[in-house]
């Protein structure tokens, strides 16, 4: 009898599964739900921004909300490669601010961006930071290759990690450093982080001896927590940040206004305040 009950239960389950599958296949014939306007006339603008923009875009979003009452700017900060994956997988965003052109172009090539909206809005450079206590006695770029230095950089996919590798390759091609320097530095890497903010955190905690980050990561607030070693221009990489409107955006006008604000005088003033350079 017990066996019979089980069979009946399973049969009911199979029957229902069939019904549900049938229901699913007829589902798409209904028109896709249109976005319903919110009860309060408040517009949400979703901005996906590279982790290196965390401080500056938070402030710009606040300023923008003051200038445009009724608009709420929702921000999502992560490595540009992670944001790109999220958009590829269908995450909703109005504006994408990438820390390199590679991830922006990848989205553009997949037809996920409004092509005409894409343009550079800011530039950045890289620098080496150590904790203020400088436990590994790093004073020059050469010191980064000292055995036992605990170096933290980004993964190869996050822009800051990609740029760091480009810099090391440039140095490897220079007789003053050479390929052995590049190898020794890469051997010192103890962790590859998926965002620049995680690199900064590891150095700030004193757990890493050095990190390769953006100049904009050194802010007036945290400057006394680090020692900074500048990377000469002939090795440095100019990080170019493009902004663009996502194709699926439902607020393209507002998105366009936001990008215009980034490029306006007040927007630029804030960007410069946070250590970025103009394109």
């Amino acid at each position, binding site marked *: *009898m017990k066996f019979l009950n089980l069979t009946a239960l399973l049969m009911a*389950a199979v029957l*229902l599964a069939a019904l549900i599958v049938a229901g699913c296949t007829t589902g798409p014939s209904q028109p896709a739900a249109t976005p319903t306007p919110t009860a309060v006339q408040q517009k949400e603008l979703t901005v996906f921004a590279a982790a290196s923009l965390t401080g500056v875009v938070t402030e710009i979003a606040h300023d923008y909300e003051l200038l445009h009452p009724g608009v709420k700017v929702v921000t999502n900060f992560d490595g540009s490669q992670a944001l790109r994956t999220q958009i590829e997988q269908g995450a909703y965003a109005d504006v994408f601010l990438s820390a390199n052109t590679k991830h922006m172009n990848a989205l553009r090539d997949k037809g996920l961006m409004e092509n005409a909206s894409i343009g550079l809005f800011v530039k950045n450079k890289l620098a080496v930071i150590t904790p203020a206590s400088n436990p590994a006695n790093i004073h020059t770029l050469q010191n980064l290759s000292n055995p036992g230095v605990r170096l933290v950089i980004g993964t190869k996919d*996050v822009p800051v990690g990609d740029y760091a590798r480009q810099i090391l390759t440039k140095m490897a091609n220079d007789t003053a450093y050479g390929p052995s320097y590049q190898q020794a530095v890469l051997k010192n890497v103890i962790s590859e982080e998926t965002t620049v903010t995680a690199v900064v955190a590891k150095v700030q905690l004193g757990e890493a001896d050095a990190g390769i980050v953006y100049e904009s990561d050194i802010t007036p607030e945290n400057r006394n927590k680090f020692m900074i070693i500048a990377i000469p221009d002939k090795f440095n990489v100019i990080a170019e940040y493009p902004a663009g409107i996502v194709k699926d955006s439902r607020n393209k006008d507002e998105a366009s206004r936001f990008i215009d604000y980034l490029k306006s005088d007040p927007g630029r003033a804030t960007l410069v305040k946070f250590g970025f350079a103009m394109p």
Partner: protein
Amino acid sequence: MNAGKRNFLERKGLFLYLGGGALLTLVLIFIVTPIISLFLRITPEEFLSSLSSPVVWNALTLSLITASLSTLVIILIGTPVAWINARHRYPGREIVDTLIDLPLVLPPTVAGLALLMAFGRMGLIGNFFYQFGISIAFTTLAVLIAQVFVSLPFYIRQARASFEQLDTMYENAARTLGSTAVPTFVTIILPLVKTGLIAGAIMSFARALGEFGATIMFAGNFQGRTQTMPLAIYTAMQGDLIASITLSVILILISFIVIALVKLKLKGDA
């Protein structure tokens, strides 16, 4: 009890069958669909070629080695602790028990940060070792520590329950016959609770294998050294989706085997 259930079912009839069936179906769909979706996104050729890529291979070997080692450590530490707490009353036993369970409910990121504050070179314990030039954070050892920290309670809970279910007459009989404590424990008690302990160890192994949050914060993310499978899945998802899916499929297969083993073991125990 069975007869009562049958009467109930007969009275309520088809409606209950359909309700129960619907619930089962929904649960099955909810759990199985995401897993099948992963398998559908990858061809067998992609899976095999990805299997030989260094990221996948390094993560797989590192994960299996660290999870096995941490399980071994857990068994060695956890078994006596579980025995003590199961058989001996001492002041503060409840507090000890609660503290041991704490990592179960602690968010893994909190565990990771806490471990970094303790074993990092600026940390409470880490600073001591750092004086002698030993770094713990961001090494394979840190991966191991994170895994032991989060999965120890799984084993201890199961082991303690197994010990508590065991009648004291066995150890009493052994002792009356002149056996001392340690030989009694090893030759009499352990074989009697073997299945329960193995089930606990398998659960700990599975938890260690899946450990992500504490590891990425405390051990960092470095291929071949600290990048275990969950970390590689997270990192690769942002670049090489196929490698990411390959690793996920392997983890699903391992998890499935683990559950099957535990079920078999517990059935054997009953």
